[in-house]
């Protein structure tokens, strides 16, 4: 059968447009995993300790550097380097809590300034370890691309990343909702004093919060390592995204941060695809400002009583 040419053209174009739309959903979903891993740590640390951790993007960067150093430079198996990256970043987080945030407990601004100091220190350390020069690259341990319906393409490396991100977020959710320590953590973030009246040692909980938050950041960095340019300044974009997601989701709300991560990743991906990345970032920041004006508690936050 011979189709009229205008029909063939528009049919072909419709298929192309549909392909692009579905591929964008795939692209956005994969992005959302990183956004969420980075943002939940920021939310946890802010919630429990009242400190905005400006060095959070650098924790992600250290995770990525660990994988680059051990896997790309010294051929350690990728999965082992993920575990080591999580451990390294967790230890950094614990040291930050013990030596900076705890002495600054009653001074959130002091804590913030300390975290900016850590940001610079970690950037310099990364330069010392990795040297200067071009961004580092990690060859992807999982090669190849899964092709669905002959047009949707998901590289196995990204499939692995999203699976691990979802699993880690699921574990975190289980920890927070089904374990006593998780309840204690949420209790401290809601009312530190009332929590101490239940016998909850808030120093210990702060340490657990930053350890969990840092571990998530380390994991995000480790998973991103094979997919992005690794350099000492890569944390910058991470923290901006994490701030947007945290504010849109509702400061202090973990579920809000995860939901906002998914929404923002899809939004950013679609705007980047159909307009461009600069428009996407600017409109993302505008949405953040809008949320601050219209609904300062974010999509999942509650108004603070008292």
């Amino acid at each position: 059968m011979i189709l009229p040419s205008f029909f063939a053209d528009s049919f072909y174009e419709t298929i192309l447009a549909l392909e692009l739309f579905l591929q964008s959903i795939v692209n956005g979903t994969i992005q959302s995993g990183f956004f969420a891993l980075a943002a939940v740590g920021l939310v946890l640390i802010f919630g429990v300790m009242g400190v905005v951790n400006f060095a959070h993007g650098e924790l992600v960067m250290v995770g990525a550097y660990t994988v680059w150093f051990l896997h790309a430079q010294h051929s350690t198996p990728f999965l082992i380097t993920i575990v080591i990256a999580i451990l390294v970043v967790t230890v950094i987080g614990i040291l930050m809590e013990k030596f900076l945030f705890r002495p600054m407990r009653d001074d959130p601004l002091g804590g913030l300034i300390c975290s900016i100091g850590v940001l610079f220190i970690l950037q310099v350390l990364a330069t010392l370890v990795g040297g200067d020069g071009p961004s580092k690259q990690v060859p992807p341990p999982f090669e190849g691309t899964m092709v669905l319906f002959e047009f949707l393409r998901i590289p196995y490396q990204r499939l692995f990343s999203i699976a691990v991100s979802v699993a880690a977020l699921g574990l975190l959710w289980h920890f927070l909702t089904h374990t006593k320590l998780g309840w204690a953590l949420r209790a401290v973030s809601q009312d530190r004093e009332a929590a101490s009246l239940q016998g909850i040692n808030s120093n210990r909980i702060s340490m657990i919060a930053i350890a969990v938050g840092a571990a998530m950041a380390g994991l995000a960095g480790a998973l991103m390592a094979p997919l992005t340019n690794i350099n000492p300044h890569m944390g910058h974009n991470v923290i901006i995204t994490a701030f947007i997601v945290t504010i849109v989701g509702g400061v202090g709300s973990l579920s809000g941060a995860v939901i906002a991560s998914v929404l923002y990743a899809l939004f950013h991906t679609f705007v980047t695809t159909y307009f461009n990345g600069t428009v996407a970032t600017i409109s993302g920041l505008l949405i953040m400002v809008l949320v601050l004006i219209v609904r300062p508690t974010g999509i999942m936050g509650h108004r603070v009583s008292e």
Partner: protein
Amino acid sequence: MKLSVQDLEVNYNNVAALKQISLEVSDGAFVTLIGSNGAGKSTTLRTISGLVKPSGGRICLDDQRIDMLSADKILRLGIAHVPEGRRIFKDLSVAENLYLGAYIHQDKAQIDLDLDKVYSRFPRLEERKGQHARTLSGGEQQMLSIGRSLMSRPRILLLDEPSLGLAPIIVQEIGHILREINQQGVTVILVEQNADLALQLADYGYVLETGRIAMQDKAELLADNEHVKKAYLGI
């Protein structure tokens, strides 16, 4: 367990909030601190439970000094504090709030028994155990706050203004429950602006005025005192 407070002094930014407060609370007693707003009642409770550090004096539980211990350690010694304004964890469920009350205990079986006891005392909490605590009414939130503190198996229970903002009928219900708790052997120290209720419930009372103990006596005698009647009972 005997709680004794001797010459307690507390300063907030160099302003004296408590000046040489002394209390003696024997095992199983029901004691109340009454006084007007800002007299130092809450500060006294907060200092006993370790939220505020004193600048002078001492607090002893039997023979042990506890005034330098942190709040979580003091709870472990058996002193629980139901804070002013309830301070329940609003984004946690009712059941999670209660389990957190038992944070210091590890024995699962006993914790579940304690939970059953709280539920039988406050049946409305059981009906709402899966809900977020923020969805509870004011009275239910106060019950949750009391129930939560009972989960720690306290020997001494400190309560700060439990009647605040509640309907009279609920206030009566809470008063009833406090008496029950005391009859089961828990020492109760109640801070109240509702002096009428407090003196009905307690066997001994202290009157605080501007950070000092102005008067102390058996509760029924205080209720008859002319000054107390005029200043606190509105008679």
